[in-house]
């Protein structure tokens, strides 16, 4: 009996290891994570508007149906990414996610203090290179220094009512995910 209990305790220790292994492996094994899903909207390094969620037609789960979204997948391997957009004079926010869907940065229109979004994402190495010879056009941009290989940016823009829909759609369609530095 005691021996069986000892074996069961040993099993518990292995159970702990299995538990940790599963939890840490899930992000790299999940095939339907946010990064993979965002590929469905079109090529990388471009913004794609996600239709507003409706009953029976939700492109991405758990998005606010009162918001309109645009998403862009990017890679920092070919250099820094600059994102520009002229957004409506209403609530909007922008969030940067890494490959695993971790939110590494987020900002709303009030914190940005303007309706124009100008965000530069670069790695620490690219940041150091840029500092040696900073382009004047970068002075007004928000710079986000993150050790990312790939990631995606999601812009959410509030649609107060359907009359605002054309204006919001237009400004999201004009969002640029590959602006010149």
């Amino acid at each position, binding site marked *: 009996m005691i*021996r*069986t209990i000892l*074996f*069961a305790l*040993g*099993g*518990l220790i*292995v*159970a*702990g*290891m*299995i*538990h940790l292994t*599963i*939890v*840490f492996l*899930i*992000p790299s094994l*999940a095939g*339907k*994570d*946010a990064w*993979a*899903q965002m590929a469905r909207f079109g090529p990388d390094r471009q913004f794609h508007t996600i239709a507003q*969620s*409706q*009953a*029976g037609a*939700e492109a*991405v*789960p*758990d*998005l*606010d*149906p*009162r*918001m309109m979204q645009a998403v862009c997948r990017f890679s920092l391997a070919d250099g820094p990414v600059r994102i520009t957009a002229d957004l409506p004079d209403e*609530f909007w*926010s922008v*969030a940067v*996610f890494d490959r*695993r*869907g*971790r*939110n*590494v*940065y*987020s*900002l*709303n229109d*009030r*914190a940005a203090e303007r309706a124009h979004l100008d965000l530069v994402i670069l790695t620490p190495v690219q940041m150091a290179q840029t500092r040696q010879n900073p382009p004047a056009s970068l002075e007004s941009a928000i710079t986000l220094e993150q050790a990312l290989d790939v990631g995606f940016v*999601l812009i*959410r823009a*509030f649609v*107060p*009512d359907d009359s605002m829909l054309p204006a919001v759609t237009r400004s999201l369609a004009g969002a640029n995910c590959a602006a010149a530095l």
Partner: protein
Amino acid sequence: MRFLIDLAVAFAVAVIVGVGSAWFAVDRGTIFGAVSAGGWTAWPQEGSADADPYTLAMLARTGEVPLGAGEGLSFTATRDVDGNPLSGRCDYDVAGNTPAARLWTLTAYDDDGALMANVAGRPGFHSREIVRDANGDFRIRLSAVVQPGNWLPIGAVDRFRLELRLYDTPLTTGSQLTELTMPAIRKVACS
């Protein structure tokens, strides 16, 4: 023989407890990092750069893109003030006020987290279109049939949940995540 039985016991314990606890911990409604107030629960960790491994595993499985701390905070409720699960066959009042936020939206989802088809085709309420009383409080009636005033249509499903998204709220930057004013969900009647 005895040894084989013991080994089988150890193996069964390892697999059942290991896989079971991992599944439980990663399933939606993870207990880690939850903040509860007045029947509403939020997971501020979801929108943080230092999200824990359980939160990351949950996000990877669902494919959700959570609100970042700079965007807002999302609260969810699955039960009324009496602790009963929310049912689409009942009418509810969501009354009171929300924590400070520049904008909020209230949306109803079915048990699987999908938006529900409803008679009005209205997916939710936001703070600008709501009628408030003299104190600034509001009362939203949840019902599958047409109601006067602030009416949030729901589908006639067994279970549903509410999501209150607070945009640009000081909650995400500070430690004031205690003693929150949240709207109370009270059952009115069932059909």
